[in-house]
């Protein structure tokens, strides 16, 4: 009986053409659509591996990876601010990998990797700052702001937009930056005074500068490269590196634990860290600073060496415990105040 079955099976498989083993990679991308497309199509061209790409914000992707943990669908998660990547590493959702490309990377990228037990790595970096709409500033006779402290001036009441730190990694980075810059009491004091001038807490991190570009608010607190991108599109946006110093994010990449195509994921990982690939970010109008030392930097990109960067403690402020504590404090002490 068993023999008969086996013969039949053999016959069956001979009669039917065996399908080619698909060479696939499922990419979860948390950067801009254009940049994501560039990476997906670029990798396809370079390797012949078929890329299925889904673009979602880093928070959404984290939620998806977490939900799918028992049966992962994605292979690699590229882009998006570092905190959710660190959180994924902390919760064991990503796989450790040491790329041969590490020698070419900036120290901040390696530091990010080490903080996560090599489960994530920095691919680009961007500093926090703000941008303002020059036309609206003129119309409202406002002085050009240069420092964080300028945003607290009473004449800016109703002119500033920032994301809600509960929903946005960018705004949480702002909160954490203020705490590190002015101490916990000073930082919250700053957020309270800022609260008075804020016209809306947006849900998404880069929404404030997009609103500023469209003339829906005067100032938006965002990552500087997001503000530069609006200027590059032709909107009257001026980008400011705050004089007191500022925090920064490290856009990251992680291999998803239990990936169905782990070898291809590693190929993508090495490829994405190469200088050539990182130099192409500008084509997608992305102005972050690349993590490969040899990659070309756009002249429009904010020059990180000219910006006063704080020594941002990613391990501490990226942990869920500290995050929950700070967010609760912000909810209780800041968001309830009258505006």
């Amino acid at each position, binding site marked *: 009986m068993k023999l008969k079955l086996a013969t039949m099976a053999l016959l069956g498989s001979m009669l039917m053409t065996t399908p080619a083993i698909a060479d696939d990679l499922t990419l979860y991308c948390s950067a801009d*659509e254009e940049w994501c497309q560039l990476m997906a199509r670029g990798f396809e061209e370079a390797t012949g591996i078929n890329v299925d790409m889904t673009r979602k914000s880093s928070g*959404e992707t984290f939620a998806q990876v977490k939900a799918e943990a028992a049966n992962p669908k994605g292979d690699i998660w590229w882009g998006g601010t570092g905190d959710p990547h660190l959180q994924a590493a902390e919760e064991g959702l990503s796989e450790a990998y040491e790329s041969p490309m590490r020698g070419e990377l900036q120290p901040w990228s390696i530091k990010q990797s080490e903080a996560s037990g090599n489960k994530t790595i920095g691919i680009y970096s961007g500093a926090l700052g703000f941008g303002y709409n020059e036309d609206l500033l003129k119309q409202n006779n406002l002085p050009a702001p240069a420092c964080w402290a300028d945003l607290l001036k009473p004449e800016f009441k109703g002119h500033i937009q920032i994301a*809600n730190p509960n929903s946005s990694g960018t705004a949480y980075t702002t909160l954490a930056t203020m705490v590190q810059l002015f101490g916990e009491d000073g930082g919250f004091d700053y957020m309270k005074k800022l609260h008075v001038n804020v016209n*809306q807490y947006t849900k998404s991190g880069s929404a404030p500068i997009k609103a500023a570009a469209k*003339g829906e608010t005067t100032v938006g607190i965002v990552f500087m490269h997001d503000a530069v991108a609006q200027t590059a*599109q032709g909107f009257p946006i001026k980008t400011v590196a705050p004089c007191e110093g500022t925090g920064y994010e490290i856009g990251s990449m992680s291999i998803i634990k239990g990936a169905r195509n782990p070898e291809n994921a590693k190929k993508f990982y090495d490829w994405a860290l190469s200088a050539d690939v990182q130099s192409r970010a500008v084509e997608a109008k992305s102005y972050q600073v690349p993590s490969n030392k040899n990659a070309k930097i756009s002249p429009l990109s904010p020059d990180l060496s000219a910006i006063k960067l704080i020594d941002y403690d990613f391990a501490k402020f990226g942990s869920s415990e500290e995050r929950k504590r700070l967010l609760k404090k912000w909810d209780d002490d800041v968001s*309830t105040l009258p505006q």
Partner: protein
Amino acid sequence: MLRHGLDRNVTFWLLTGLAAFVLLPWYGIERGYLDMRWITGGWPFRGSGASGLFAGLERPWLLPHLVFLLLPLAAWGRLKSDPLFSATLLFAGAGGLIWLLLQGFAIGLNGFEWSWLEALFGPQDIRQFGMGYGALFTAAAFLFFLSSGLAARGVVNGDTFVVGSIGFVIAVVGIFIFFPIMKMFIAGLQTDDGSYSLSVFIAKFADRKIWSLACMTGGTRCGVAWNSLFLAVMVGLFSTLLGLVFALVVTRTGFRFGRFLRAMTLLPIITPPFVIGLAIILLFGLSGTVTTTIAGITGMQPTRWVYGFTGVFIAQLLAFTPIAFLVLIGVVEGVSPSMEEAAQTLRAGRWHTFRTVSLPLMRPGLANAFLLGFIESMADFGNPLVLSGNFDVLSTEIFFAIVGAQNDAGRAAVLAMVLLFFTLAAFYLQRFWLGKKSYTTLTGKGDSGHHPLLPKQLRYVLFAIAGVWTVFTLVVYFIIIYGSFVEVWGLKNNLTFNHYVRAFGLSWNEFGLHFSGAAWDSFWTTLQISAISAPLTAAIGLLTAYLLVRQSFAGKQAFEFTTMLSFAVPGTVIGVSYIVAFNVPPIELTGTGLILILSFIFRNMPVGVRAGVASMSQLDKSLDEASLTLGANSWQTFRKIILPLLRPAILAALVYSFVRAMTAISAVIFLVSARYDMATSYIIGRVENNDYGLAIAYSTVLIFVMFAAIGLFQLLVGRRQLGRRFDQSRTNWEAGG
């Protein structure tokens, strides 16, 4: 009492089940149900295509299914009335289903899912994947055995069709609504380390951000629960009023441009919701056209007044009034003129007739329209996303509780429960208001077919309201279409076709026509998935409505509650609960096109149900009884008598589910995958990127596609012929397209 063979239907399902168990792959395929590659993957003996029987050689727990499948043979030669017949079928059906579920949940990807099994058998090296076609049809056979057994016992007058339908609806609603929501709520009790705690739940529930009433007492803002409730009540009330105004204008004023108005009121529902929000920003935002013009004339400082309650309210009213209109038009038309004629014969004036006869008879429609507006507003996600400013509502809060940096599925579940409570409360209030009065006006008896005109003053008021709203809608749509041609709004105001070329460009290459535009992929997927889900939604919705209105059975209340449940749950929660529930065996669907189709069917099913219930409660039961008396069975009656009279309801369900599938966003955003990306999630991505041009251009194309589709549905479904003369109100669905 012997007879030859076995009941015909039972034989059919026995053979189907057997064939499925022996021939079809028992387990699901990695790439989803629509992928047919299993045929070459060792089917049916081994590998991913192995059927239940052959997979059972390695996985012995599958073999008992065969026993349950063959069991009905024991009823061979017995009559339906024989107690052994029903007992055998009941045992085979129930036993098979229970076994199927038990083994499915007990053994998962990593062996035993339940620790007591592991304690009993020791750790075993076994695993299984999600169920596939084989399991599906085997389960269907079991379900039919069970319902045949029940019918043979005399349940619902022994009507096999009705019992089978009830069983089917309960099974699918259970799997695709109840099960995921239960899983989601269990997540609400879960703490960070994976254990369960009631105190964590209570702490989350009592949150000030949900229930604060600070805005009433001069504080900054109220809790999201109150915000949502206030918004939903206002939107429900005003959309019902406006919908009624339009329905009356079209049917009872002798208005000549009904065709135009009907087409107009369709516009907002075939628009991706956030597009209306965008247009409102372009008009009324701080730098909006209207705002800056007014500021230029009056010298006032422009403000951000539109962000918050006002903006969302306006956008939702634009979006949901047409839904109210669609619900009300059927009811307003369906109110039999004979009642109104009777009132006028008794010397009631036009106003008196309208107030005391026509309006009360429209109650079911009004209540349904309000309920729809209320729930739609509660669940709406797109408009609050772009317009709500600091006026937080539940649906967006839920979304950001899950995807935001806070990432708290528990909080999302708690917020969802609050939302559910509100919507269900509205549902019960509606039932309470309707009471047990009879609204039957569509009988087999003849009438003149003339609806009386409304009193003159009322007509003028209606014309004025409808006129203003129509102009406003036109302006909004002009902005949308105009905006799709503007290069960069507010910056480079020159007109260009660029956005259309980028989205829907075509080119010729060596393989022939090449769809080079960026939007084609998501466009085809969307079209395909919407076209598949619309007829399925209408079918299951109307079947359910038929069971609810025309049949009485134990547990009908609970049955109705279940079928309405998915409507009360916001898409966001459906999305996340589907991911939580259907990512792991026994039902593995994430990343497939099927999960999108299923989410649409069960999310939109209540609209089919409501439309069907509203129309069917106007059909006199004597029509069915006449058919049954003449010897037709319940299936024939349903198909030949009720279905043709339900054409408006069928059309409403088809149009609504198709349109919703094309424009839905909140559930979709969680369920799209690389392979199956939908138009709305693609557009949201462009909006996020400040690329309004492409987003609006894509939306404009979607609007025209939906127009064409609605026209097509009308041609396919046709119009119910009521035998009334329509020379007075010469507007109908064909004319409305």
